């Protein structure tokens, strides 16, 4: 929400579900939301319904690297949030209910584990996070601000902490017990750290003891007796006395089995799981039970004794696909849900195919045979079960029977209003963006006919298209007809967009083309007419579009090319590789100037950013943004908007785009299509950003420029048509925008992929708030216009614009909730009544009547803080409405 303008994102997911390689699982505090983190950095929220179904709710984009751990960050139903940490040191605090990112921080080091700790000292409960990872300390953070409060350091052989747990001792003191990578068990007094220390002061350990176990993966304390610790390493597991860490029970190594984790699930009963995803339940011998007279009777001669007895094991879910990496398992203890409902103990599995499986552990811990899985679900099966299936942006243009072709590359040509999509059969489709978007979002007579809207297909590649570039979009020096495409067939094709013919095929690379880039301003005349292509064989080439040949091929890189930078004044092309090395090439003659590693490499890359003359810096953000967009990589996009990470769900990108739109000169772009890739091998999904503010401005300018409808002179008609053509984007976007506002339900079907639940209205309060705002502001604007209807008889100038007030209203019916049917029906049937009244009724419906119609339990009030943020909105329409809304809400 930090974006300047009100922007609505709509996601067109496409038929294929994002690959969600689960690497971390968490059951939220509210007991009905499951959170999974994946290797590509996204988080997925799943609803755990009371009838034992798991339904995906939202996919959160926020991290740029694999998620390493998830942890709850609050207590109580009112503060249901969680923390996620990524491999590159990023940490995000999220709100579970509406998927907003509340806080973001980035450290240089990676966290591999986070523990939530609530210190209820003196009646003030403070939420703390204990973080450990690839650094020798344990960091205590504030769970609300993610700021570091204290660090627990070691004097004796400090090393990375691999796992830790909090132990409450009889004296009322709480201790952190941690195991280091080199096999030391360490104890810190947590109570001292939290109460007796100045902020930032380090605390040394109280005890440090070597244990003869390395590679520990998990340490957990028995929640029932607090006397036993379960220590699991890759090859063995042991039970220790928490008082003096003496060994109570142990197992020898089992060949071919690597333990991954475990928990106490009842007094004397433990659950262990291994790297293959199998889980075993053991009963510990009586020497491990503090209540038994045999407690500690085996100390010193544990290894001769018969270890724990196996009670039962779980059945792993059937695999139809080979897993790419080990599945993750997590255990969640029994809790009392809302209304005293007793939820069973759950063991949850997440794997690389995006699948979740849940076992409900029997309460008596006895099970005759292997425990079967109770729920299995995955994003892919959910996508398949949807009807209608999730829309892709150009689904209707595929003629194959096996479902639409996958989109492997896409580029939105903002200036032309066109969308170019490369597909996996090697063809490229050029299609008007608003029209194809409208087809996916609106129902109408045209949706039935295939091949609409008019489009152009370019055939040339033999493998799938991997990247697209329209150089004119970035710099005026290029020919407006040139479009470039790179494919998996190793070739780069130059197209004439106007005629659709392939002008030239550059075959210089020995691998798939991964990126197409444009040299910046200031290069030599020869280079200025080039584009730069990067291929999977680690080569970079400069392809001259004028000479139709490759003028430089830099191919000696040992590692994949990570980024390409320019020093135009020195005639250098700077190539950064994935291992951190930097190669500097002379563009004119293709000579490798130097190859640097380490600090030097970092300095060279920094130098490239600084080398841009001061006069050009103003345009720089936009250039970066454009390149980011051209590369269509989420990472790059985020980099361009790196301060913008602090947003919610898909709106992350929204605000980024909003911000960047502001940077750009033409703010009045009502629609922006951005392609996203959830995993590196996934087909693209598209996000439509509808900028409500820009839309309103466009509408109003159009209105002002419009001749009076009554004027029938052919000249003015002609003019109007011209205007309409020019502002065709606006016209179509109106529909898009209206849709966005209208289709609370349907839009969210695409926006948040999940919607079969009744009260979709409340999926995310922030998203709903935004929708309401934009919808009402649009309705208000349309109300103030003279010709604001899509009905054919009122607007015969623009057939493409006049499709559907009827269908539109039908959609309102479906979309907004059933009880409203009558109201809107009357609005629709009352078309003869003044149009303005229709719009005002629509606005009133959303503004005032929604709470009553939906009922108190289903209506979620708009977030007041978001309304307040927009209080001084630049756009008068939005501002006025907002005040009205807030007043209404307040009442």
């Amino acid at each position: 929400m930090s974006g300047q303008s009100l922007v609505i994102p709509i996601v067109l997911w496409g038929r294929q579900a994002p690959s969600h390689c689960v690497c971390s699982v968490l059951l939220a505090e509210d007991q009905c939301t499951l959170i999974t983190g994946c290797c590509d950095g996204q988080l997925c929220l799943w609803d755990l319904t009371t009838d034992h179904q798991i339904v995906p709710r939202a996919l959160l984009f926020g991290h740029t690297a694999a998620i390493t751990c998830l942890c709850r960050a609050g207590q109580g139903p009112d503060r249901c949030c969680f923390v996620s940490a990524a491999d590159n040191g990023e940490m995000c605090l999220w709100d579970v209910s509406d998927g907003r990112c509340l806080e973001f921080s980035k450290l240089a080091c990676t966290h591999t584990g986070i523990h939530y700790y609530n210190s209820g000292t003196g009646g003030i409960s403070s939420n703390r996070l204990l973080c450990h990872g690839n650094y020798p300390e344990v960091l205590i953070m504030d769970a609300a601000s993610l700021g570091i409060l204290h660090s627990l350091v070691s004097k004796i052989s400090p090393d990375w902490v691999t796992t830790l747990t909090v132990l409450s001792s009889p004296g009322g003191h709480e201790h952190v017990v941690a195991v280091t990578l080199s096999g030391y068990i360490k104890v810190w007094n947590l109570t001292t750290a939290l109460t007796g220390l100045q902020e930032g002061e380090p605390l040394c350990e109280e005890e440090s003891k070597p244990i003869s176990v390395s590679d520990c993966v998990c340490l957990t304390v028995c929640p029932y007796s607090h006397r036993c610790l379960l220590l699991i390493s890759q090859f063995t597991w042991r039970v220790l006395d928490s008082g003096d860490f003496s060994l109570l029970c142990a197992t020898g190594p089992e060949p071919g089995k690597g333990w991954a984790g475990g928990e106490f699930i009842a007094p004397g009963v433990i659950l262990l799981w291994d790297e293959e995803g199998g889980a075993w339940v053991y009963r510990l011998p009586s020497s491990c039970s503090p209540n038994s007279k045999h407690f500690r009777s085996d100390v010193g001669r544990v290894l001769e004794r018969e270890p724990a007895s196996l009670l039962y094991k779980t059945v792993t879910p059937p695999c139809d696909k080979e897993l790419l990496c080990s599945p993750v398992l997590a255990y969640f203890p029994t809790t009392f849900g809302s209304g005293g409902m007793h939820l069973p103990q759950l063991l949850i599995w997440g794997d690389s195919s995006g699948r979740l499986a849940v076992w409900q552990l029997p309460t008596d811990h006895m099970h005759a045979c292997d425990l079967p899985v109770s729920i299995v679900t995955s994003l892919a099966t959910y996508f398949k079960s949807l009807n209608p299936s999730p829309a892709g942006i150009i689904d209707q243009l595929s003629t194959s029977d096996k479902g639409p072709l996958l989109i492997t590359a896409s580029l939105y040509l903002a200036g032309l209003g066109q969308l170019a999509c490369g597909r996996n059969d090697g063809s490229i489709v050029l299609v008007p963006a608003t029209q194809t978007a409208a087809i996916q979002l609106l129902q109408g007579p045209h949706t039935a006919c295939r091949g609409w809207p008019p489009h152009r297909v370019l055939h040339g590649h033999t493998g799938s298209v991997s990247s697209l570039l329209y150089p004119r979009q970035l710099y005026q020096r290029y020919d407006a007809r040139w479009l470039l495409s790179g494919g998996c067939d190793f070739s780069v094709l130059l197209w004439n967009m106007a005629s659709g013919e392939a002008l030239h095929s550059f075959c210089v690379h020995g691998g798939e083309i991964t990126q197409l880039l444009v040299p910046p301003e200031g290069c030599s005349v020869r280079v200025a007419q080039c584009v730069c292509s990067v291929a999977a064989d680690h080569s970079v080439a400069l392809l001259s579009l004028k000479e139709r040949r490759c003028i430089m091929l830099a191919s000696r890189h040992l590692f994949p090319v990570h980024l390409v930078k320019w020093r135009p004044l020195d005639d250098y092309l700077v190539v950064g590789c994935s291992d951190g090395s930097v190669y500097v090439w002379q563009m004119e003659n293709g000579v490798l100037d130097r190859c640097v590693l380490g600090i030097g490499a970092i300095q060279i890359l920094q130098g490239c950013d600084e080398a841009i003359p001061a006069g050009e810096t103003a345009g720089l953000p936009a250039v970066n943004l454009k390149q980011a967009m051209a590369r269509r990589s989420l990472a790059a996009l985020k980099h361009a908007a790196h301060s913008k990470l602090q947003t919610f769900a898909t709106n992350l990108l929204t605000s980024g785009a909003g911000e960047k739109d502001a940077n750009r000169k033409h703010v009045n772009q009502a629609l922006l299509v951005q392609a996203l890739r959830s995993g590196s091998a996934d087909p693209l999904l598209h996000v439509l950003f509808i900028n409500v503010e820009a839309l309103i401005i466009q509408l109003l300018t159009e209105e002002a420029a419009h001749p009076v409808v009554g004027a029938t002179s052919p000249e003015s008609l002609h003019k109007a048509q011209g205007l309409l053509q020019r502002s065709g984007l606006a016209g179509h976007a109106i529909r898009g925008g209206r849709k966005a506002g209208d289709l609370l339900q349907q839009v969210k079907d695409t926006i948040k992929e999940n919607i079969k639940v009744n009260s979709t209205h409340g999926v995310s309060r922030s998203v709903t708030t935004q929708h309401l705002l934009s919808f009402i502001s649009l309705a208000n604007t349309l109300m103030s216009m003279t010709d604001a209807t899509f009905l054919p008889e009122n607007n015969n100038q623009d057939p493409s614009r006049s499709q559907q007030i009827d269908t539109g209203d039908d959609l309102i019916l479906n979309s907004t909730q059933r009880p409203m049917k009558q109201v809107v029906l009357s609005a629709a049937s009352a078309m003869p009544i003044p149009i303005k009244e229709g719009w005002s009724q629509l606005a009133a419906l959303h503004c005032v009547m929604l709470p009553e119609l939906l009922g108190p339990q289903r209506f979620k009030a708009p977030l007041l803080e978001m309304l307040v943020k927009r209080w001084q909105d630049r756009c008068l329409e939005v501002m006025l409405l907002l005040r009205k809304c807030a007043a209404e809400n307040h009442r």
Partner: protein
Amino acid sequence: MKLSKQSQPLHTFFREDKRWKMQQIQDAGNHLHLALQLVSSRDKKYIFHTGAEVNKLMESVLQQLNRARNRLTIPAAMTLPDLVNTNGAKMFNPPLPSDVLVNFYVHHNKLCLILYQVHPLQTNLNKNFKAAGGSVCHSPGAMFEYGGQKFEVSHAHKVESTVAWLNQVLLYTTLALQLSQQLRDKVSVFENYWSKHY
């Protein structure tokens, strides 16, 4: 391992009773350990079924190897107040004068020791005071503020000593990185071919 440092008439030695913990070496070692753990996580008899599986594994191995090497080749950029806090001066016998800051780190195969001599700035002459950011090696003239007092670096002295086994570590890590990358590239070529034609 003993280094002596003369700057003007200053003689000092590393204290025998205290060990200087080289976090960079420990981190690099741990990253290598994790890489080894990843490689040996599969049984010798294990058969990989898909190229994607191999790629996924190699990707994490490469990442760990790369981090290990980066820890040695890219020393942390320290700000001058950070150096005051690390108490590096206490590690010497006889102790260093209080106006000397120490930075001790590994850079490639070299062990580097930098001594900064600082002098306080007059409070009324700090119109063009500009706090220096993080850097591995600050040049004379860098300014910083600590405890309300402003200081300026007047001299910076650097000593380096080559460590032979670090050279070996770097060499073998680089070799491992290159081999892993080659394996990964080859597998992905076949993987792509396979997935597109079958």
